[in-house]
């Protein structure tokens, strides 16, 4: 969760229009997926980390890359044994385990996963969810209802976490021992906690829905928000650059 949290700032990236950021993250990811060039994909990962560093997010980008590499390694292993084109690389007792084609395509796939996910995850670091949804409603006329669902879902995550901690505390105060190493026992102990979590969450959600309704939730249109999300020259420039990047990665 921590790695996806918004980090306030005033860098060039922060100041872009939320829609530009969203589009840019997708275009950057698309460029990585289109490209069939191992070196280009690697370069794009490094470039992304450098770009993040300009917004003071270099450390976070590195940590995200590391975590994504773990995921990539998993896909690498699976892919390695399933693609059987090219020359045999690892042969034992007449059985071909790994081929050159498998190696290249596995490397490419896992690096693509890292390269395409990285900008999307960094998007959350430079954009507040409420801004993103606000801009989507204002500029693209996405129905407010859907934008609201997204913002609310994000807002409920920390709420659930703290609620769950409080529930756990209430049970610990009654003598329930959660720091056991026995997984089966742990599950047995934690499972009943979902009952209070569910009841109190449903109560909260219900109250939230009613209070939204009585404050005129249904009257809201795309034009109701106070905040404006104008596009600037920088937004145009960013989009042009990214389209160029897509062309380059398609050609290379």
């Amino acid at each position: 969760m921590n790695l996806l949290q918004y980090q306030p700032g005033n860098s060039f990236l922060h100041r872009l229009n939320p829609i530009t950021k969203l589009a840019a993250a997708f275009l950057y990811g698309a460029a990585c997926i289109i490209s069939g060039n191992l070196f280009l994909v690697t370069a794009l990962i490094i470039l992304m980390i450098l770009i993040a560093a300009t917004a003071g997010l270099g450390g976070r980008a590195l940590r995200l890359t590391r975590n994504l590499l773990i995921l990539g390694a998993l896909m690498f292993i699976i892919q390695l044994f399933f693609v059987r084109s090219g020359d045999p690389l690892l042969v034992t007792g007449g059985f071909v385990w790994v081929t050159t084609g498998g190696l290249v395509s596995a490397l490419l796939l896992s690096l693509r996963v890292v390269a395409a996910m990285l900008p999307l995850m960094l998007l959350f670091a430079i954009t507040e969810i409420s801004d993103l949804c606000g801009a989507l409603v204002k500029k693209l006329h996405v129905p407010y209802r859907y934008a609201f669902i997204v913002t609310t879902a994000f807002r409920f995550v920390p709420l659930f976490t703290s609620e769950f901690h409080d529930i756990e505390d209430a049970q610990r105060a009654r003598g329930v021992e959660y720091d056991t190493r026995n997984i089966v026992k742990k599950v047995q102990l934690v499972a009943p906690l979902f009952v209070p979590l569910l009841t109190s969450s449903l109560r909260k959600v219900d109250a939230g829905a009613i209070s939204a309704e009585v404050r005129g939730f249904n009257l809201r249109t795309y034009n109701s928000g106070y905040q404006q999300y104008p596009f600037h020259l920088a937004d145009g420039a960013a989009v042009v650059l990214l389209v160029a990047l897509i062309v380059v990665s398609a050609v290379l």
Partner: protein
Amino acid sequence: MLEFKHVSYHYPATPPVIPDLSFKIEKGEFVALAGSNGAGKSTISRLSNGLLLPSSGEVTVGGFNTKTTRASQIARKVAFLFQNPDRQICQNTVREEVSFGMRVQGFPEEEIKARTEAALETFSLNGDWSPFTRSRGERQRIALASVLAGKPELVILDEPTTGLDYKECTAIMDHIAKLNREEGLTILMVCHDMELIQSYAGRVLVLNRGTLLGDGPTRQIMKDRELLSKARLRPAQIPNLALRLGAGFEDVYTVDEMAALLQKRAGHKEGEE
């Protein structure tokens, strides 16, 4: 029973909520912890039973140091009632809920049965009810019954009566007071309702921004208007009225005392005429 020795506490990445706190509560006392919102009352109550550990200093409760004892072990001696009963209730029937604490603490089965039935009786609860559909007051009573069923030595109550009507509130408080009187149960009650404190607590700790401003018998604290206003608390009505009336009313503290004194004065006047 409970002692804080130069305790400080800060939540991760915040300035200290409690800078340096020391106090001691003896067995059998009924102590109220009063303070305005955000004064640190809930933090102190969580420090008291090992749910939070002090950043520095020591908390001892029932002979245990909270740093070296598990919260679940402390739970045998120290019961904790949260403001919101819904965080606690997790079983399908009231009977299972009331026996749950004793069961996880490993009480023998017969004892669990006997104590559960006794607790259901004293708190006028039906063991077959589903706790989730009961009223707020009843849910609070169920939660209280289940923390008290294991016969703890100290009970910490974090705002036990918020959201309860007068009848539920007095029912719960009277029961707690009775256990305090008759069985020597020690009580630490977090509260900012000065009327409730005046009616039940023998001693008050006055808290402001994590610092103890005052500590003394309820009668004395209620008269200290300067102290209370510093802690952003309002004295209970009768002591407040007595302070206003000034000379002759210094020792008046309860409704009964006020009524008696006023009647006596009225009687004097009639006699003089």
